[in-house]
């Protein structure tokens, strides 16, 4: 109570003084004398308030006055720090949301995903496969059932077409398969109704029940309690009944996308007994102490499962995967959920975090330099304070409080910046059709990070000036003869560090921009502009070939459509089929890619045929095939393969003979990075009755083909009412999807490179300007003695430019040393490329010249007579 009073009194100092004054006046009015009233007042004041806080308060007031006096410097410091702190907080928000934040479940640190090592045959890189088939899941679950719980969790962000009413009112919602005990093990509670239980997950297809997320309940139903018992139809077939809403905050385990409804794994009825169909991630909840034992048991179970599996696999397939029955098994931490987005963006985000940290250091060095220069200007004030009895700690406190005020202002500004920029960056990652939904709360974690950063930063840039200020020697300073060299040495070191970091940031930005540039200018082998793709579903059955052709024909008749054809799926859409093929009994390894296409596909995609001809209407799988150039060079070497035949895989592990009727120019199928793989194009039509899904590929004469989407969608519906367009996209979007990550890295690293450059230039300017002001007299004397302007320029700039070269060298060394951390993200570019190295060097040199120009001119224009007269 009393302490509180004393703290409160600090902020009513004036009132307190008046009270004491009034009490003494009252004393006089009664007839008393008051001797030494000021002494009494001061003594009473110190008793009635907290003196330490009083000192802080007066420092704050004084500091504020100082900051306002040097508005330009303060603004420069605050803005540069705000930019850095804001970026850092924003990066932290993204990293935290994607990689760190634990799932809102009972025991997140016990959660792992069971993964096996595999080698990608095409890229030859090792990676973890975290998918599983249902039979394998069952075996793993039984193998460790006494020590751990194995769960099946489907891939999230699995967008489905569902309807709550008529089939014409389809809407998108994302589904996740979960085994029956998932909610139980996660310790989740229903917000309404009930959750899924093991009893829901016993027999394939038995219980079509769904639990929806709280988020979906809010978004779609406005938290209507009547939602329980509602039914919806998925993909035109399965009818699900909603039995519950899961508690708020849990939106699935696929970090980066949210799940709208959860259904039992048994609802994927066809997959339950399929040993070769991996369609979910096997999760495990295992306490720390039994992890090693459990891992070994899992390894044995997987090895066993694979031995069984090997009996049914063709020999050439097994040859391509050595040690298939000796798997390397790992438990990958899944505390923060598991997603493809984490896999793709972990490294880019961490790299960006590193870049931002460098920018933060640059900003700190900058502010430290500005403050040091200011402290130098205030040396006399400090000396005066020391002479009248201020202690060293008192001075450190004074300067640190000033830095803290700058940091607090910068943090507030930076916080606003982060508020806006984190969702903005998350928005940039959006692939078409599947929006990224990253939970980005601004909670105590973010707040703690930002304020921790502010504290660290203010100490980082405030401590040196504070220490310097406190060590002032009054006798020397008041005479005006401090040792100026010492201060400049520190500032020069900071400039060198700044330049080094700046060089590093620029080198990185150069690499990422070059990567993006090369990747997006990578020839794709087809002409994507003007092409629209429509994914089609036939409701509950297979559409006959005649019906598919009827739909394609109706599309061709629309105005604006140049040509239209059918394919299994669009190129570069993420879909891929690789299967075995052999020429003269020799199997291709790695397995070639396959794509089903209808006649006219090559002309629609504008892929030239260099030999032979296109498919003709009525030609069927597997009788004929068209191969790409790479296929020819890999198998036949040279020469015309038209008329030769290849053995290709047909359903049920059998083979069929296909006659090569044409050779097509290479076109990109999977992504932009890999070298083009042997590809076999086969006819869409086969001996089967028809097809239940596929894609229409439409070439329009519109620059923006998406404007035709609504019209074509309606045309499909009109032509055959049970053919439904589930998704439309432009071919360009399919291509651009493969450069999203590179574009993000290039854009952000370029942005930070510009920020770093501006900061470094401001820092350089500040230091040079300070040194010119400080050496005014010296320069004046030199000029009076006959120094030429060129001499003065050299004298003023040589020190700083030496630092510049030192810093650039340091940055180069750092850059070459850290290249291997970013290597996997680069494409056809290396840090040792001359152009990549030259760009930051030239940019920095130009920026340095511009920054150095004003202070140098100032030095040259010094009038010796005037400079010598002052002081």
């Amino acid at each position, binding site marked *: 109570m*009393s302490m509180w009073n004393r703290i409160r009194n600090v902020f009513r100092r004036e009132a307190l003084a008046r009270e004491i004054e*009034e009490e003494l006046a009252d*004393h006089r*009015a*009664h007839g*008393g004398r008051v*001797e030494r009233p000021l002494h009494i007042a001061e*003594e009473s004041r110190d*008793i*009635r308030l907290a003196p330490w806080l009083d000192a802080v308060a007066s420092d704050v007031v004084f500091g504020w006055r100082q900051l306002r006096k040097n508005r330009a410097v303060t603004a420069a410091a605050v803005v540069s720090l705000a930019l850095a702190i804001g970026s850092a907080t924003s990066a932290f928000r993204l990293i935290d949301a994607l990689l760190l934040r634990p799932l809102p479940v009972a025991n997140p640190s016990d959660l792992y995903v069971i993964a096996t090592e595999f080698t990608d045959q095409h890229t030859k890189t090792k990676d973890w496969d975290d998918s599983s088939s249902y039979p394998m899941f069952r075996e793993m679950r039984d193998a460790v059932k006494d020590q751990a719980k194995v769960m099946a969790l489907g891939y999230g962000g699995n967008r489905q077409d569902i309807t709550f009413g008529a089939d014409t009112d389809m809407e998108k919602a994302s589904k996740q398969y979960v085994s029956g005990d998932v909610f139980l093990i996660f310790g989740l509670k229903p917000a309404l109704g009930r959750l899924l239980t093991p009893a829901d997950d016993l027999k394939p297809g038995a219980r079509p029940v769904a639990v929806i997320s709280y988020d979906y309940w809010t978004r779609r139903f406005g938290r209507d309690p009547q939602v329980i018992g509602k039914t919806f139809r998925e993909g035109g077939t399965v009818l699900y009944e909603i039995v519950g809403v899961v508690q708020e905050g849990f939106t699935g385990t696929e970090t980066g996308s949210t799940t709208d409804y959860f259904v039992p794994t048994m609802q994927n009825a066809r997959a339950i007994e399929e040993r070769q169909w991996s369609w979910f991630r096997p999760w495990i909840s295992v306490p720390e102490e039994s992890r090693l034992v459990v891992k070994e048991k899992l390894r044995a179970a997987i090895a066993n499962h694979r031995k069984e599996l090997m009996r049914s696999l063709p020999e050439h397939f097994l040859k391509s995967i050595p040690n298939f029955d000796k798997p390397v098994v790992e438990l990958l931490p899944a505390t923060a959920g598991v997603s493809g987005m984490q896999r793709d963006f972990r490294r880019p985000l961490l790299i960006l975090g590193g870049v931002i940290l460098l920018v933060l250091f640059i900003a700190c060095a900058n502010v430290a330099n500005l403050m040091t220069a200011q402290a130098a200007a205030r040396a006399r004030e400090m000396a005066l304070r020391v002479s009248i009895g201020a202690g060293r700690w008192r001075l450190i406190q004074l300067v640190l409080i000033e830095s803290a005020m700058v940091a607090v202002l910068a943090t507030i500004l930076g916080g606003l910046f982060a508020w806006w920029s984190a969702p903005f960056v998350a928005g940039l990652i959006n692939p078409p059709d599947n929006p990224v939904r990253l939970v980005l709360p601004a909670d105590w974690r973010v707040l703690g990070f930002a304020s921790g950063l502010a504290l660290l930063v203010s100490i980082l840039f405030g401590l040196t000036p504070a220490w310097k200020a406190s060590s002032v020697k009054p006798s020397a300073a008041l005479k005006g003869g401090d040792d100026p060299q010492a201060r400049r040495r520190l500032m020069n070191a900071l400039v060198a560090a700044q330049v080094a970091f700046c060089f590093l940031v620029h080198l990185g930005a150069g690499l990422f921009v070059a990567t993006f540039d090369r990747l997006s200018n990578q020839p794709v082998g087809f002409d994507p502009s003007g092409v629209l793709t429509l994914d089609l579903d036939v409701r509950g059955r297979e559409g006959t070939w005649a019906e598919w052709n009827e739909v394609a024909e109706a599309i061709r008749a629309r105005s604006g459509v140049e040509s239209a054809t059918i394919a299994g799926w669009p190129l570069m859409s993420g879909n891929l089929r690789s299967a075995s093929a052999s020429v003269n009994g020799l199997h291709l390894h790695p397995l070639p890619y396959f794509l089903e296409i209808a006649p006219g596909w090559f002309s629609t995609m504008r892929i030239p045929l260099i030999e032979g001809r296109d498919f003709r209407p009525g030609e069927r799988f597997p009788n004929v095939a068209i191969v790409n150039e790479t296929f020819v060079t890999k198998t036949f070497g040279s020469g015309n393969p038209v008329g030769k035949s290849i053995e290709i895989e047909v359903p049920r592990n059998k083979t069929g003979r296909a006659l090569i009727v044409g050779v097509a120019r290479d076109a990109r199928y999977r992504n932009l990075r890999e070298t083009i793989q042997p590809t076999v194009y086969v006819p869409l039509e086969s001996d089967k009755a028809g097809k239940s899904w596929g894609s229409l590929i439409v070439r329009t004469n519109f620059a923006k083909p998406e404007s035709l989407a609504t019209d074509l969608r309606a045309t499909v519906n009109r032509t055959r009412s049970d053919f439904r367009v589930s998704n439309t996209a432009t071919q360009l979007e399919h291509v651009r999807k493969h450069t999203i990550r590179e574009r993000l890295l290039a854009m952000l690293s370029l942005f930070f490179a510009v920020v770093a450059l501006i900061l470094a230039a401001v820092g350089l300017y500040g230091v040079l300007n300070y040194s010119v002001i400080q050496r005014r007299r010296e320069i004046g004397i030199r000029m009076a003695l006959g120094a030429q302007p060129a001499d003065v320029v050299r004298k003023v700039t040589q020190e700083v430019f030496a630092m510049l070269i030192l810093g650039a060298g340091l940055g180069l060394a750092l850059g070459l040393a850290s290249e291997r951390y970013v290597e996997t993200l680069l494409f056809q570019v290396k840090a040792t490329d001359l152009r990549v190295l030259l760009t930051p060097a030239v940019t920095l040199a130009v920026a340095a010249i511009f920054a150095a120009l004003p202070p140098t001119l100032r030095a040259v224009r010094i009038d010796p007579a005037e400079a010598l007269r002052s002081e």
Partner: protein
Amino acid sequence: MPKPDSLLGSLDLLVLKLLARRDSTSAQAEGRCARFQGMHGYAIMTAIREMSDEVLDVEEGSLYPALHRMEEAGWLKAEWTVRDNGRRSRVYQITAAGRKQLGHAETRWQAVTAAVNRILKMA
């Protein structure tokens, strides 16, 4: 530093005692309508001087800081009262904690003076 006064460190004791007495007597005299009775600084000073037959003299330089210190310690509470001429007086009153402190200080004073007197008589 305040210069040593003639009270030999007994200022706190005297102030507390005065306020304690004043409090109880006035409460008895004026009944329950006495909401807040206390003394202002000048009154305390005068009371000490008069009751000690002008032997003890408190200086303002010691009195006011002492009052403020005891207020901070929670032994006294202060309130502004408006007098007839419109001026305000800061009036002090003893608290429960103050009474407790008074008890300690009084016992100690008695013990010390008794001991000092014994020595003076015996020596």
